[in-house]
């Protein structure tokens, strides 16, 4: 392992022009990223250069940029990291166990709190799993509403990511805070839309087994069009604000992810797409109403923090387009296939099991449910994309400075509520 060489990463082809790709496991992987050196995450500190004056720095669990309560133990040689060990579990709330104790009806508001940046996705994932278990067909109107909500939520989530990434790169007392406030201004519009639809700005509990709990209110579609059009124009403003030499100096070549490693670790979502792998569940395994709309998947081949920024910003624009397209085609009809919930034990699937995965803003969010015929699931396993993204950290941190680790952490965009559950 070498230290201090990650600044000169191979960036063959850059973002324009041809990028040579190789076939790895059926996926086209950019060739230059496969050449990356993979640091040893289990480096033996005792066998490291005995002359070096190492410093162990516990970054977190109370640290401004660990996005909650992640604790990373950094072994620093000067200011260069030689080994990073993430410690998870500071936000463990036992959600999976809780799901076993609660009934199918009660679980939805609980899983809202997993990925607390995009609750709509959690609801969607878990309810789709329950519906697969029940083998119930969700009415098309509910599917469209779910999809529109999911896309608005994706915009909101990426806006929050952009703001917090600004905080990581630019500081909470400085330009980063300005970016943060600007993105939150627009995210507020998304939350207002959800307030109009479901009554809650967050933790909506608007999905239920078999459909939705809330129908579209009068005039909501006009509000959505206005708000999303506004956000689309503001995204240009963020680009003007952010895309300057300082931001590029901080992100280009930082935290370059080897896509093969990422696939081995199960990382997906924008991180994988920024590493040149064209994979999006919305397009490749459509669920809800995604088969009714054309989806362009933004892909970047540089694999660094800047590529991830580009992918997420483009995804924001794409989500706005998808939401607006679907909003025009919302069919009439019922919003729920089952009778309205009138008691905690209303839903009782037959014994069986189901796995459903959706594309959350952070990647593949999977839910695996086993039913034993009782009103509560026998087992409910959540597959959070953030956990896999956090697993990348020991591979990305060695060789970079503390500032770069912070930028890498920010660009991975994991949510600790989802990592620890």
């Amino acid at each position: 392992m070498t230290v201090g060489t990650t600044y000169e990463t191979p960036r063959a082809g850059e973002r324009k022009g041809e990028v040579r790709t190789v076939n790895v496991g059926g996926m086209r992987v950019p060739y230059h990223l496969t050449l990356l050196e993979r640091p040893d995450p289990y480096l033996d500190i005792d066998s490291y250069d005995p002359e070096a004056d190492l410093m162990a720095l516990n970054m977190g669990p109370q640290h401004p940029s660990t996005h909650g309560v992640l604790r990373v133990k950094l072994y620093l040689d000067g200011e260069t990291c030689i080994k990073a060990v993430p410690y998870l579990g500071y936000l463990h709330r036992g959600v999976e166990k809780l799901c076993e104790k609660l009934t199918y009806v009660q679980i939805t508001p609980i899983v809202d709190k997993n990925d607390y940046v995009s609750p709509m996705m959690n609801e969607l994932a878990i309810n789709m799993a329950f519906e697969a278990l029940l083998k119930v067909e969700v009415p098309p109107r509910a599917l469209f509403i779910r999809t529109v909500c999911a896309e608005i939520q994706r915009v909101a989530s990426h806006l929050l990511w952009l703001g917090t990434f600004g905080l990581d790169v630019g500081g909470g007392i400085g330009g980063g805070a300005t970016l943060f406030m600007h993105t939150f201004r627009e995210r507020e519009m998304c939350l207002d839309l959800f307030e109009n639809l479901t009554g809650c700005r967050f933790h909506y509990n608007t999905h239920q087994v078999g459909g939705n709990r809330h129908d579209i209110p009068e005039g909501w579609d006009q509000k959505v069009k206005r708000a999303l059009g506004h956000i689309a124009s503001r995204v240009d403003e963020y680009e003007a604000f952010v895309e300057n030499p300082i931001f590029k100096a901080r992100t280009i070549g930082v935290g370059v992810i080897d896509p093969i490693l990422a696939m081995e670790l199960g990382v997906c979502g924008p991180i994988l797409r920024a590493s040149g792998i064209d994979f999006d569940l919305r397009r490749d395994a459509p669920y809800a109403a995604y088969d009714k709309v054309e989806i362009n998947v933004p892909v970047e081949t540089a694999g660094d923090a800047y590529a991830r920024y580009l992918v997420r910003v483009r995804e924001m624009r794409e989500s706005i387009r998808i939401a607006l397209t679907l909003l025009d085609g919302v069919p009439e009809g019922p919003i729920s296939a089952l009778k309205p919930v009138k008691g905690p034990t209303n839903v009782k699937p037959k014994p069986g099991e189901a796995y459903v995965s959706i594309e959350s803003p952070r990647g593949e969010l999977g839910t695996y449910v086993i039913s034993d015929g009782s009103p509560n699931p026998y087992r409910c396993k959540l597959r959070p994309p953030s956990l896999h993204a956090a697993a990348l950290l020991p591979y990305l941190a060695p060789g970079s400075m503390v500032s770069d680790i912070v930028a890498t952490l920010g660009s991975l965009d994991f949510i600790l509520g989802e990592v620890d559950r």
Partner: protein
Amino acid sequence: MMEGGLLFGNPWLHGLIMGVIVLSGAMGVAAYAVWFERKFAARMQNRPGPTEVGYGGLLQPIADLLKLLQKEHLIPRSADRPLFNLAPVLVVIAPLATLAVIPFGPGLVGTDPSIGLLFALAISSLMVIPVWMAGWASNNKYALLGAMRAAAQAISYEIPLLLAAMVPIVLTGSFRVGDIVAAQEGGRWFAFWPPGPGFFAFLLFFFASLAESNRIPFDIPEAESELVAGVTTEYSGMIFGLIYLAEYLHTFIASALAALLFLGGWQGPGPDGIHWMLLKSLLVFAVIFWIRWSWLRYRSDQLMAMCWKIFLPLGLVLVMASAIWVQLR
């Protein structure tokens, strides 16, 4: 200027009275700079900013001061107590001593010695020692890293700062701040007059003093997303307030020096006087805040690279260019 540059014949009396005026004025400016910055940043972010204490939050600095005074002065058990307590005091002394030679108007100066500018730059660069002291005495890894970065940055950027200040010195042929201002008489401000070097020297001075006073985009010593709060991590209460005050004083002095050396000081269209000086330095101050709340932050190694690869050669070229200008004139 008055005879010998003194308003009140006796230099001791003059120094005493001017000291009180300048120090209290600068303290007030520093306190209200915080208010102004908060309001300014808030409006940039579509927020109202402080509104609760006084009209438009005008009493906010006083409320903050009272709050900081009430707070407990926490000292970590493993800290080096004498150094820990001494460092914030020394941090404030450096900018306050610099204020002695900074004129705010004709004769409105503690003392205007023949090496005034040299004194100001030398004393303000002393600030790195107490900052390092604070970082070391805190016995905290974040504080240590922050102090390390602060020391490296301050020492590196000292050189381009001095080189940029050399341009007006070469053009004037004097270290006396009063002489430098006098040489810019008639609107021939050094930022504009020798058309090439002056302007670039102004920019160089501006950005180097941004780095000296740890402002974005060069605020890596207190990069709060990386180092929690840098050297101030372990400080609390008024002793933290002192470091905070010193930072703002330092920024204010940097903008005052920029106004004196490159923007004609207290001279302006219409009557000369302190109003021009205050206007210009506050304008530079506002630009510093504007930049602070608009740009992101560099990494420390990029910062060093910029200093040694761009700023230093640029400074040398500018000093040479101004020397040639003086010879050819």
